[in-house]
């Protein structure tokens, strides 16, 4: 327990202590600075977009991996874990190079991907993919064939069975996966700094603002922004948990 306090609780409480040393006016001014506000929108928006993309494609991938057989399936299954295993900085430089205007993928598009918000979304999509796949996969695996058979015996076609029977069973896992991916994306730094381009007001994410303030030895300012991030992600997670709790209430056998 001492270990836990030393590594986690004590350091985190410093945020509170340091914020208290600020006056309310100072605090408010720091966190509502236009650059900061723009970064909140960007961080939140791109994390949301990446989360949604991953929920859709992550669920499809989980489905394909559980239900179908095809050559190379085991390799694909393993590759899904790549974002967990690959250092974020490595992912960052690789994605940036690929999606840069002269990169392998970037050159097929006449608009810029790297160094734009779109690039940030791509980096965050990379980071978040395994969260969705790995939460949906076991649920799909354990989903009894019986309910599908019941649906078919009652006259439903495959599409109806999927939408009305299978999908509702997956919602809780999809939401969990989304919230994991989302909260990871919100704070993600390593993979994003390279691809973002870091232009103030345009492609500057909130963790980068904290970083910049730290480099200027503005510890108080950095802490203030950190508080906004912590409170923000706390509220979002609370909200997601609330939805889940409401769904689970009627759900569990």
């Amino acid at each position: 327990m001492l270990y836990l306090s030393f590594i986690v609780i004590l350091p985190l409480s410093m945020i509170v202590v340091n914020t208290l040393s600020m006056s309310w006016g100072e605090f408010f001014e720091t966190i509502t600075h236009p650059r900061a506000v723009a970064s909140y929108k960007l961080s939140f928006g791109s994390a949301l977009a990446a989360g949604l993309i991953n929920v859709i494609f992550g669920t499809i991938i989980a489905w394909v991996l559980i239900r179908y057989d095809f050559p190379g399936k085991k390799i694909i299954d393993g590759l899904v874990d790549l974002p967990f295993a690959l250092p974020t900085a490595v992912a960052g430089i690789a994605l940036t190079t690929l999606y840069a205007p002269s990169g392998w993928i970037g050159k097929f598009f006449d608009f810029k991907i790297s160094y734009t918000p779109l690039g940030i979304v791509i980096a965050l999509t990379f980071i978040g993919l395994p969260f969705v796949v790995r939460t949906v996969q076991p649920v799909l695996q354990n989903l009894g064939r019986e309910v599908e058979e019941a649906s078919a015996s009652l006259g439903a076609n495959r599409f109806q069975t999927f939408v009305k029977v299978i999908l509702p069973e997956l919602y809780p896992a999809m939401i969990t996966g989304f919230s994991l991916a989302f909260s990871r994306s919100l704070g993600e730094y390593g993979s994003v700094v390279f691809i973002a381009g870091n232009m103030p007001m345009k492609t500057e994410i909130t963790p980068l603002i904290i970083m910049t303030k730290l480099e200027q030895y503005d510890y108080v300012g950095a802490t203030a922004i950190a508080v906004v991030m912590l409170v923000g992600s706390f509220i979002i997670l609370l909200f997601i948990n609330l939805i889940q709790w409401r769904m689970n209430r009627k759900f569990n056998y």
Partner: protein
Amino acid sequence: MTKPLDVDRKMPIVKKAVSNPYPLKESAIVKWSLITISLLYISLFLILPLISIFVTALEKGWETYVASIVHPDALAAIKLTITVALIVVPLNAVFGIAAAWLITKFTFRGKNLLVTLIDLPFAVSPVIAGLIFILLFGAQGLFGDWLFEHDIKIVFALPGIILATLFVTFPFVARELIPLMQTQGITEEEASISLGASGWKTFFYVTLPNIKWGLLYGLILCNARAIGEFGAVSVVSGHIRGETNTMPLHIEILYNEYQFTAAFAVASIMSILAILTIIIKHIASWKAKEF
């Protein structure tokens, strides 16, 4: 009823049992388009980036590649990263086992709080994780003056990097073990103790063999993150070349100095480690399922 039975006995079964295809399975078109979508998505986001790392690293030939890796700064970064991992992983392993043991085999007040606290580092941005250690041990920090007087350096030095990495990788082992030990319950431990084994013996002969694959799984993820952590370490390291630069930080510096080949060369080593991680992880999870 009149069909001769011996025919059935002798004939090998060639025909494959075909389930009624229409209502219980998707049509082939749907199936293959879903597979194609998945493969495309994974190629775009996972496979191509991985390939590009190696291609870019070797773009200027083996000599440049080797030169970038044996560069003193690169070697120092590799050494530092290994040191950090060697300290962080065992510490978190011990804690993870202890915490999971505590949570699954005993009941006590504040258990839920403990579970939440263990998860907390996952919810905190790595940059904030770095920040809090600056606030504690930095020059203006809580212990800043005291540390300065005693000439102890934590921030912008190895201890800071280790602390930040500890924080970030804190949940991995415990997270992996808690559900595993929960499903296993405590009956085997009770049996062992009832047969006269001591607490430690019970742990080594009963608990540990049961959780070894789950433990390995947690350790490997913990290790991957410890090696690759960027945000938190970046805040506390101070970026002193050859001294406080871990491999990811070294990659960043090279990249920002437009030494792309060198950056990707170091990155390729880390990618190989990542691939190894995935392979070990999958072996561990297969083995864990066999139980």
